[in-house]
């Protein structure tokens, strides 16, 4: 059974600081997703990572994938308050179903 672990579960950081969220998964997968979720809202797709060594960047967020280590990271550069949200990684398995991580609740303080 595919297991996906994220850490930290909660992250409080000041504006302007950098930090990384980690996503480990237990078995080989075709692709890995990162989503953002605001309270009470749906899942906003941030990145889809397809292959080993893949790196994608959008604004202050950068995601990478190491399939050999079964590890993905979401790096936040110079955080701003608008990035406050919960971030989920999700790994694609059989029947294209996604197994989600526990989520990281990010709070960026002014």
């Amino acid at each position: 059974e595919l297991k996906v672990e994220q850490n930290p579960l909660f992250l409080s950081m000041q504006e302007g600081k950098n930090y990384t969220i980690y996503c480990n998964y237990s078995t080989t997968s075709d692709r890995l997703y990162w989503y953002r979720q605001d309270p009470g809202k749906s899942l906003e797709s941030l990145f889809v990572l397809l292959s080993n060594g893949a790196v994608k960047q959008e604004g202050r967020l950068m995601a990478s994938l190491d399939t050999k280590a079964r590890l993905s990271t979401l790096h936040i550069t110079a955080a701003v308050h608008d990035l406050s949200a919960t971030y989920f990684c999700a790994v694609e398995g059989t029947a294209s179903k996604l197994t989600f991580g526990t989520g990281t609740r990010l709070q960026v303080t002014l």
Partner: protein
Amino acid sequence: EPEVTQTPSHQVTQMGQEVILRCVPISNHLYFYWYRQILGQKVEFLVSFYNNEISEKSEIFDDQFSVERPDGSNFTLKIRSTKLEDSAMYFCASKASGRGTGELFFGEGSRLTVL
């Protein structure tokens, strides 16, 4: 931009009642999914559906749950006799192609509250 639409956005029901949640996937998509998220927890897979049949289902998706694509556009999730623990946000998702290809699109969710 095409999107997955879900209705209702919020439903309140009494324990033991039947509930149907509706989804209209993106029109050329072939793979359909239901996920749920209990408040404050992670998103959990319920069921996947392709070619008019269930491809895979989780342990959560017991005999009280069923899915249907009644008319070629809607994709429904029915809960026969709701329990308190069914209270959650239910997300529908769709995809154009199978494993390892295409992107999964989520709807806005249907919040179910069971009293």
